[in-house]
Every structure is written in C-alpha cells, then in structure tokens.
C-alpha cells in the first residue's frame, strides 16, 4: 500500500466530489491531500507543489482540461511514472479502454465505497512498486 505520508492530488470540478474523495482518502489513512478543480489547475499544482505529489486521483469529465487530457499530459512528461487513478461515472468499456491506452494506473467507477477505492489503491501501489 502507499505510504500514508504520500502527497495526493485530488482533481475534480465538483467541490462536493473533492470533499468526498478527500474524506475517503483520509479514512484510508492519507493526510497530505491537495486539490485542483480541473486538469489545467492540477498540472500547475503538480509542477509547483513544494513537496512532490506521489499519487493523482482525478475525475474524468471536467471542463477545460479533462482527466484524460491530464493523464496524457502527465504520461508525456517527467511525471510519467506517477500513479494516476481515475474516479469517474464513465463505466463503458470503450472509455475504460481509452483510459488504459493512455496509461491509467487504476479506475474507480462512481458511485464508490471507501473499500472499493482502497482495493484499487492497493493494486495500483503493488503495480507501481
């Protein structure tokens, strides 16, 4: 599993979803959580964070820069090995394949329970180790 001290970047345009994801991550044990309200802001946060970000948990459907756009940008940069989890209501096989092709580390379909998020994070941590 991830070190609980890992800095996590939560990306979602909806404030309530950021709150929900943050609350769930805190229940799992994370405490260093920063937030961004779209992919473009997340990219800035990733580059300017004083402590390195160790995990991104992002929504897919966002205005301006989507979660998929952010994922592609991350995979094409110096952060290419950063674990990247998509938490999204997009559950169709076509979309999941698209995310996998872009290099997503894990995928959680909304609505989700904390246990589902934890299980996904455990698999992501195992694959990233």
């Amino acid at each position, binding site marked *: 599993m991830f070190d609980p001290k890992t800095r996590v970047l939560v990306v979602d*345009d*909806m*404030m*309530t*979803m950021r*709150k*929900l994801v943050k*609350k769930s991550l805190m229940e799992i044990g994370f405490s260093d959580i920063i937030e961004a309200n779209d992919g473009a802001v997340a990219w800035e946060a990733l580059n300017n964070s004083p402590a390195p970000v160790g995990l991104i948990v992002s929504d897919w*459907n*966002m*205005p301006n820069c989507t979660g998929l756009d952010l994922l592609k940008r991350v995979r094409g940069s110096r952060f290419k090995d950063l674990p990247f989890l998509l938490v*999204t*209501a*997009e*559950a*169709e096989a076509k979309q999941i394949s698209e995310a996998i092709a872009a290099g997503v580390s894990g995928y959680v*379909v*909304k*609505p*989700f*329970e904390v246990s589902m998020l934890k299980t996904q994070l455990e698999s992501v941590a195992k694959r990233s180790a």
Partner: protein
Amino acid sequence: MSFQKIRGDVLITYFLKKDLTSDLSESLARDILDELEKSPVSGAVIIDFQNFRLEYKALKALTPIGIELRKQQKQLYALAENRYVHATIRQEGLDTVVKPIHSVNQIGVDGPSPKAPTKIDVSFINPFIEGTMHVLDIQCRTKVNPLKPLLKRSGEFDCKTDIAGIIGITSKSFTGSIALCFPEKVFLDLMSRMLGETFTEISEDLKDGAGELTNMIFGHAKTILNSRGHTIDKALPSVIRASDLKIDHLGNHDSIILPFSVEEQRFFMEIGTEKN
C-alpha cells in the same frame, strides 16, 4: 458596446458583435434586467449570436434571467446558426432556460404548442430508476423507494423543487434532458450523509452535489442503455437553484416523472426526450 439592442412591444432582441464570453454575458444580463425593470416584455428576449460563438461559462450569468422569464411565462432564446452554440447549451442542460433556435420562426410568443402524448417506455426509464436507487444507496447510504412513474401532463404528482441537477442527453436518435429535483430538506439530508457533516443550508460549495448525483445516475443509465444499442454521448451536469423551481424540457413532447420516497419525504427525476 459589444451588442446592439432592439426593443419592440413583444420582443427584445440583442445582436452580438463578438463571441459571448462570461464578461460580455454579465453585462448583457445586467442590460436585460434593466430593460425588464423598466417595463416587462410581453413576449420573449432573444440573443442573436449572428455567427459568433458561445463560451460555456457565459451561460452562468444568463441562467437566472432565463428562470425569471419563465416564471413570467416568457422565454429567453439563443438564436444561432452555429450548431456549437446549440450543443453547448444542451450539454449544460440549460436548453429550457436559454432555448436554442435556428430561426425566429421557432419563437412561440403565444405560448408553447400542445404536447403530444408520450408512452412511458419501461426499458428506457428503468436504468434511471435503478441508477437513482444504486447511487443514493452507495454514495449517500440512503435507501429510496421508487413510486409509480407518470407523465408530467397528468398533473398527478406535486413536489416542491429547491435545487435540481440537470444533464443534457444527446444521441444519434434522440435528444433531451434529465433533471433530478429535490426539496431543500431532502437534498441537505442526502449531502449530510454523503459527506459525513451536518448541513443546514444549501451553500455555494454544496449545490454542485446535485449535479454530481445526477452525473452518477446518468453515467449508470448511459452504460446500460448504450450496451443495448443506444449511442448516448457524455455530458457535463449543471445545477439550478431557486425556490419552487419548475423544470420544462425543450421540444414538443411530454416529460416523464419518476417519483421516489425517502423516509416519508419525496423527490423526483424528470426525463424529457424527443426523436431527432
């Protein structure tokens, strides 16, 4: 000025001279309000886009104007040949408050035309019913009971709406929108359970929760319907917050009401679709 205005007895028409950005939209909204304060319009307010584009954030300033006009049985129209303008409004689920039209001939200043009766298609609405039950169970730890679906025109269902999450539906064969409508207390109870805090008012921060619940239910239903051959596109939700809100859907069709009960309170989903 970035727009030109023509005021007649029935219509106020604004002709844009540049793309409608959020800044321009705010000054346009202020001007419309000033005009309506001077004297109410008897027909409609039209924004003629010419060939200019629409920034989706610009819709925010126009939404309260559209709602206010609807309360007065009037309509705000977006007249545009550019299909992108229509698609943006529909994707934001705002096509009832800012109605996109291609021609002024589509303006019904004498009121909406009668709606054709619509059958309730169980195979289409069931994924939305299941989705609502599933999403609220998992995300809000709340069991809700579906009540008998009915056509809106029957007038047999009455439930106050203080906040609604709306999402536009576009597909190859039909377009429309869904609205998840809550009285304030039901919404606050659901958000309190979802986020593990007690909320007593619908703050700016909290209201997007209505959009997110709608988004999850739409995502659930879309997955099922597309697996059966539909081609429903992705869309972003929007939220309308107003006291005793009435939702209407674009087109000559009847909306379907899916009522739910939760601990002796009620809320509902409205679905309005029309064949392309």
